[in-house]
């Protein structure tokens, strides 16, 4: 089906609309977008909490499988060959501009696409969960941010805590979700009148509460960097992916060791 959605409209040999748009540039969002394809293999992990494991056993198989699939998408012209230089903002622009029929993007893009594409465009947009690896459950990446305070001054601690309560409170979380599709983790927000009957937001909600977060380890950035590099290796070269994954895992572990 993907091949059918990639279309050369005027027969000049240039594909005008690719079936799928995926961000592949060196960016943390690239990793967030494609981690579900790795996690979608049951049990696949980047780390075990102590060390890097994506270069071992079934984790390595899952990673190679995911990268081979990505390479195949580019080779079969389902995804644009310039994927490695596309940021998520480029994919959004391509989607609105008709350069791709489908796009894998974050929930927050829905609000942006609605604003930039207009009401007529958004009427023809539907949202679906990322398909699962056959035989496995679908999974998505649940991102988000951490607020922390470091001050030892009691007055500032009090003020910071008040801000955190305000930010994590009902009104702000509702505004973020309704206006910017930044999905709150407060479940009751999704029963609010603005969201209860919104099929798009309810789809996002299912994804969020079935989502997986990135590994909470100090060396996550090292694994993230290597994961981004692997994606770029897969779509820009014909390098052996088994060896590439082994090298990437070794490199990430070396950096992890330097942090101890």
């Amino acid at each position, binding site marked *: 089906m993907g091949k059918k959605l990639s279309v050369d409209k005027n027969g*000049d*040999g*240039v594909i*005008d609309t690719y079936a799928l748009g995926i961000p*592949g*540039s*060196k*960016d943390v969002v690239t990793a967030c977008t494609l981690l579900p394809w790795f996690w979608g293999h049951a049990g696949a992990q980047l780390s075990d909490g102590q060390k890097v494991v994506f270069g071992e056993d079934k984790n390595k198989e899952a990673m190679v499988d995911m990268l081979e699939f990505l390479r195949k998408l580019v080779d079969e012209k389902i995804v*644009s*060959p*310039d994927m*490695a*230089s*596309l*940021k998520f903002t*480029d994919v959004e*622009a*391509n989607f609105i*501009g008709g*350069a791709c029929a489908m796009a894998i993007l974050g929930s927050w893009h829905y609000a942006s696409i609605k604003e930039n594409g207009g009401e007529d465009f958004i009427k023809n947009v539907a949202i679906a969960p990322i398909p699962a690896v056959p035989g496995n459950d679908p999974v998505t990446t649940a991102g988000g941010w951490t607020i922390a305070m470091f001050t030892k001054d009691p007055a500032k601690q009090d003020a910071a805590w008040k801000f955190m309560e305000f930010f994590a409170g009902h009104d702000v979380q509702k505004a973020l979700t309704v206006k910017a599709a930044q999905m709150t983790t407060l479940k009751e927000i999704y029963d609010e009148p603005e969201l209860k009957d919104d099929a798009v937001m309810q789809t996002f909600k299912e994804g969020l509460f079935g989502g997986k977060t990135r590994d909470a380890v*100090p060396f996550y*950035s*090292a694994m993230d*960097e290597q994961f*981004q*590099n692997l994606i*770029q*290796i897969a*779509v*820009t*070269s014909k390098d052996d992916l088994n060896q590439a994954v082994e090298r990437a895992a070794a*490199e990430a572990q070396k*950096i992890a060791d*330097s*942090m101890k």
Partner: protein
Amino acid sequence: MKIGSKYTYLFFILPAILWVIAFTVYPFFFSMYISLTNMNLTRPGIYKLVGLDNYIELFKDDQFWLSFRHTAVFTISVITFQFLFGFFLALLLNRPMKGTSLVRTAVMLPWVLPPVALGLNWQWILRGGQLGLINAVLLQFFRIKPVDWLGFERALLSVISVTVWIGVPFSFMLELSGLQKIPNSLFEAANVDGASAIQKLFHIIIPMMKSTFMINLIMITISTIGYFDIIYALTDGGPNRATEVLPLLMYHRAFKFGNLGEGASVAMVMLLLSLICTFIYLLMFRRKEAEF
């Protein structure tokens, strides 16, 4: 201190000296110190001296040598083209004609705009597919298929081109001021002797501009070896490390992975490269430029 005292000058240059110490001398020596430690952002305050271990590991690292090669290609290309284009433009615009001021102002524009803003704009211009500006023009007017300008094969070339475009105004300004220092009487005498434009170029202009060339080359080289912002904005060293030059490697090691010791050692290597290149230029241009 009385005005007129022989030490009065110290009072006036003291702020500049303090500034240089605070923002150049101290950071330099502290960076050198950091490069000899295993300082890591994930272990604030906990580190020890490791001697040359960071350098040894660096020189054994394939990624370092890849970045080194990219830096060499990037630097040599930028030096060559920025210098030549700047000189060519200076020769072209060093004559009184209508609109010269306007053209000179236009030439200077890339230099005065913020590099990161330029990088983001060039991302749009160089974007692959049909939505990039260059590709849209090529397809619409010349029926040329879209080119992946920031893809693996062309990313370094694109980054070099953008860097040259930004740097040419600086070289142009330097070369133009050098040209304008040459006494007119020399050209008049050459005209009387029937010298051609090429003869004037090789026998008057180039000999008289040696010191300008040297300064230009040194400044381009030092700034290019340490060039970061445009490459970061355009590609962040990708795709697949195709544009990962030493400054980006330093940034990734120090701030993405927290390994300040390794990052500082890359910085020291960059400094050494700059010093070697400067020394080479000083040797090349050690003969005094022509005096008349």
